[in-house]
């Protein structure tokens, strides 16, 4: 089995259906008699709804029904929720405004849901939506993040009269003050973490279906966590009790966080299916995705670092203002707080840290977790600070990092996290070697000869994955536990189905999870099927995000496999007529110690079901075990990325000339898949640094609502990447896995901006460093040099 076990580059089991066009995405599903939903969205960023006149629209051809916020209210459909309670410095709970699935009385961003038209065809629904007359009273919008809480600003939610959601902090303010008093040098920096649109290539989609005979609903949806969707739709929104609501997330075309959340559209589809007595299907077009999917990032930060005379960091003070948009999305409140400040220690020994975060409402799309969620923002702060500080101190940025690296583990940071293991120096040294940092000076001279500016930037990131120990996050305000479940069902012929609460939407679980199971049981990988994404099959689960499926999801499978092995040994002991203690299990064979008596796994499975060799009093028949795994700590993947850029000062175009990544993900199940995750993450991080940015105008209109205006990274914007690893196994889970899904997106923005500012010779440029911005910066630099 060496060819497919842990560590093997197994090609993916799921690929055949995708490369032959046989994938089964939500939009590929059609239910008999289905009608189509189209959402009428607000054209205003902020307006009162005086009246909605649907009379004419309702009479249009093909229209089945039109619903507005009044119908939602009449049916007492609960509002969308935010599942993480944050308390402000003064102890008061965050101020969450109501979030109805269809607007009631007021709209709060362009794209807000005003009405839904359900018709025989999408075209007819769209036509009828045009005929709905909404009498709006436009209000002044709040768009600018910096001034959102200014006195006299328009009020978005009555619950938050100054547009502030919370004013939160973490860390020891007094200790930080004392550290700054002792400092020899203080580095200060102002940063914008630009707003991004996740842009999974599959737009969201949903089909609600109602079976009146069984009084049961089915929702097909593009979800990263169907069980959480069911829990929220059931317990909070009140569609139906859980046993009457089945949620299916079939093949999902990418998520990056944006498909974690429970949105208005799927809520309406499932609710409306019963109202109209037909399945209701909705598929977002790309414009709708830009307008109404949860965006990511959007921070303004001022940060200061105190450093002593020996170049050692004494303290860190970070003050951030986070834009949460017009409503609190499902996990919005946790992203700029507990997923952010606890990561500000980076890979460094920083004795005192104090983080303050003010989260605000604006009349823009809700903001929530996007690949990395809080951790890219933290890495951007600390890694830009490290680079700038080194430059100010006249130190080599790599040497400055080395000096401050944490070197002994476990390491308790001043901001909650206890890093279990790592070797930060090893990653840096290896990355510098692979990258040929020594040759950089020569390459820079060559670029200069060609009239180009060359720069090199490091990013030594850390992330907290394996989310998360349930009791720990519970004490921090989480509304759910973050364990994972698994069930291993061995069939009488020895094939195996593994039901997991994790969800795969590009990560390749059908392959990596099968590698684990096949290796452990000594059976061919073809004999293992991974089942996920259906609440009727998998009893409960927490889904996939935060690079948790390896560290948490696979650990649950290990626990279930332990039980399978124990039970199978019992069966084998009856068959082989030996004592259980004498049974060994290796390479798919149960054998009796010191004899040549053995039986293979498939035969034991059969014996477990025919149950002829033992009595019911001796052993239960069957071979099926389940497990829940709750992590005991976060995991801490880390690594070093080195970006090398070349800038053409004439055009402002930045080219990524070279990229090296050395990551420590602990034990790796399938290096091919892990490298793919790193590539994709880096691309998204480079996108953030150089290309992408969601821009609203002063009226709250989204100016970047299509691929014509929002610059997605394309193949010719990117280089090939050099990706390598170091390994310190994670001590807190049975497989030693740390997680890899977000690393690239976390590391890359700081690496790029450190390289760009190195090339330009000054720090004054924000993301995205577009050719226009870079051109201005380069020209200003050249002018200064000429003076």
């Amino acid at each position, binding site marked *: 089995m060496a060819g497919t076990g842990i560590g093997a580059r197994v090609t993916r089991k799921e690929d055949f259906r995708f*490369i032959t066009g046989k994938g089964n995405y939500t939009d*590929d599903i059609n239910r008999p008699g289905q009608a189509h939903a189209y959402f009428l969205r607000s054209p205003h960023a902020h307006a009162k709804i005086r009246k909605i006149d649907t009379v004419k629209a309702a009479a249009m051809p093909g229209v089945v029904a039109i619903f507005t916020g009044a119908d939602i209210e009449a049916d007492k459909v609960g509002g969308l929720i935010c599942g993480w309670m944050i308390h402000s410095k003064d102890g008061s709970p965050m101020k969450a405004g109501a979030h109805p699935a269809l607007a009631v009385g007021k709209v709060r961003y362009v794209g807000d849901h005003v009405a839904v038209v359900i018709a025989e065809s999408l075209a007819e629904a769209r036509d009828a939506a045009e005929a709905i007359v909404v009498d709006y009273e436009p209000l002044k919008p709040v768009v600018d993040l910096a001034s959102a809480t200014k006195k006299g600003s328009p009020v978005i939610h009555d619950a938050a009269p100054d547009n502030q959601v919370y004013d939160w902090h973490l860390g020891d303010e007094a200790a930080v003050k004392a550290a700054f008093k002792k400092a020899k040098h203080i580095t200060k920096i102002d940063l914008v973490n630009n707003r991004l649109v996740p842009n999974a*290539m*599959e737009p969201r989609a949903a089909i609600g279906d109602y079976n009146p005979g069984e009084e049961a609903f089915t929702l097909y949806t593009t979800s990263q966590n169907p069980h959480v969707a069911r829990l929220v739709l059931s317990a909070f929104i009140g569609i139906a009790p859980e046993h009457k609501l089945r949620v299916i997330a079939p093949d999902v*075309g990418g998520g990056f966080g944006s498909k974690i959340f429970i949105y208005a559209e799927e809520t309406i589809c499932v609710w409306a299916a019963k109202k109209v007595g037909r399945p209701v299907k909705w598929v977002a077009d*790309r414009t709708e995705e830009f307008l109404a999917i949860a965006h990511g990032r959007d921070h303004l930060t001022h940060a200061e670092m105190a450093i002593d005379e020996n170049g050692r960091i004494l303290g860190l003070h970070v003050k951030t203002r986070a834009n949460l948009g017009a409503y609190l999305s499902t996990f919005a409140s946790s992203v700029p707080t507990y997923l952010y400040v606890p990561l500000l220690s980076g890979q460094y020994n920083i004795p005192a840290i104090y983080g303050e975060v003010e989260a605000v409402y604006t009349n823009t799309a809700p903001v929530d977790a996007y690949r990395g969620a809080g951790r890219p923002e933290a890495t951007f702060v600390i890694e830009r600070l490290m680079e700038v500080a080194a430059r100010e101190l006249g130190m080599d940025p790599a040497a400055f990092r080395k000096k401050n690296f944490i070197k002994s583990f476990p390491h308790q940071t001043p901001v909650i996290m206890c890093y279990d293991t790592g070797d930060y120096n090893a990653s840096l040294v290896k990355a510098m070697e692979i990258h040929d940092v020594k040759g950089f000076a020569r390459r820079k001279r060559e670029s200069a000869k060609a009239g180009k500016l060359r720069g090199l930037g490091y990013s030594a990131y850390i992330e907290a994955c394996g989310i998360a120990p349930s009791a720990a996050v519970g004490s921090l305000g989480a509304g759910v536990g973050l364990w994972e479940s698994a069930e291993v069902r061995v069939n009488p012929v020895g094939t195996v189905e593994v039901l997991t609460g994790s969800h795969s*939407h590009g990560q390749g679980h059908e392959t990596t999870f099968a590698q684990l199971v096949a290796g452990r049981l000594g059976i061919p990988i073809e004999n293992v099927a991974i089942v996920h994404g259906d609440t009727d099959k998998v009893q409960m689960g927490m889904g996939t995000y935060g690079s948790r499926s390896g560290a948490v999801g696979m650990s649950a499978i290990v626990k279930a496999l332990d039980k399978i092995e124990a039970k199978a040994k019992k069966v084998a002991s009856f068959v082989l007529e030996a004592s259980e203690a004498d049974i060994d299990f290796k390479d798919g064979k149960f054998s009796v110690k010191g004899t040549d008596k053995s039986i293979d796994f498939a035969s034991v499975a059969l014996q477990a079901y025919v149950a002829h060799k033992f009595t019911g009093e001796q052993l239960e028949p069957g071979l099926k075990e389940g497990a829940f795994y709750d992590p005991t700590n976060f995991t801490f993947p880390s690594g070093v990325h080195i970006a090398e850029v070349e800038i053409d000062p004439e055009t402002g175009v930045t080219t990524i000339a070279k990229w090296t990544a050395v990551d420590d993900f602990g034990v790796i199940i399938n290096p091919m*898949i892990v490298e*793919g995750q790193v590539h994709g993450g880096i691309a998204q991080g480079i996108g953030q640094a150089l290309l992408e940015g969601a821009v609203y105008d002063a009226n709250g209109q989204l100016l970047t609502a299509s691929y014509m205006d929002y610059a997605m990274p394309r193949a010719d914007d990117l280089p*090939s990447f050099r990706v390598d690893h170091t390994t310190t196994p994670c001590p807190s889970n049975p497989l030693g896995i740390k997680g890899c899904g977000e690393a690239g997106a976390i590391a890359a923005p700081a690496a790029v901006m450190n390289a760009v500012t190195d090339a330009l010779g000054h720090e004054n440029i924000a993301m995205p460093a577009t050719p226009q911005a870079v051109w201005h910066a380069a020209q200003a630099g050249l002018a200064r040099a000429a003076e």
Partner: protein
Amino acid sequence: MPKVSMTVNGKRVSADVEGRTLLVQFLREHQRLTGTHVGCDTSQCGACVVHVDGKAIKACTTLALSCEGANVTTIEGLANGTELHPMQAAFREHHGLQCGFCTPGMIMAAIDMVNRLGYDLSEDTIRHELEGNICRCTGYHNIVKAIQAGAAAMGGLKVAAE
């Protein structure tokens, strides 16, 4: 409603369609060939690429009626049973896909690239030619490798056949 007829993956098909029906709708909704995807509404992402009379086009911006009499190949028409087209095989071998949503369009665009530019494609050429196809998952690294290998494999097949 006007009627449109065309050959899709070697099969003669026809249907009554609205004037505004797009080729991608005709394929997905009328023919139930759901391998061709829709990822945008501005003809930018390439998830919808199919071949019409041997050339790659974006099915999201082509009216079904304009394909009267045409010969259309979709992702479903590439493999011969379980025997994959070399470009499909290369995408699997080189891990050129993650979520799989952009993949059909990528593969169709890649084959068209080979048809136009030959079997020996440089990394630069491939990156440049992929301008009309967006992937959010892979960072393109392995897509580029897959296309290079797939192109070479197509060349090898051609040589073998000759």
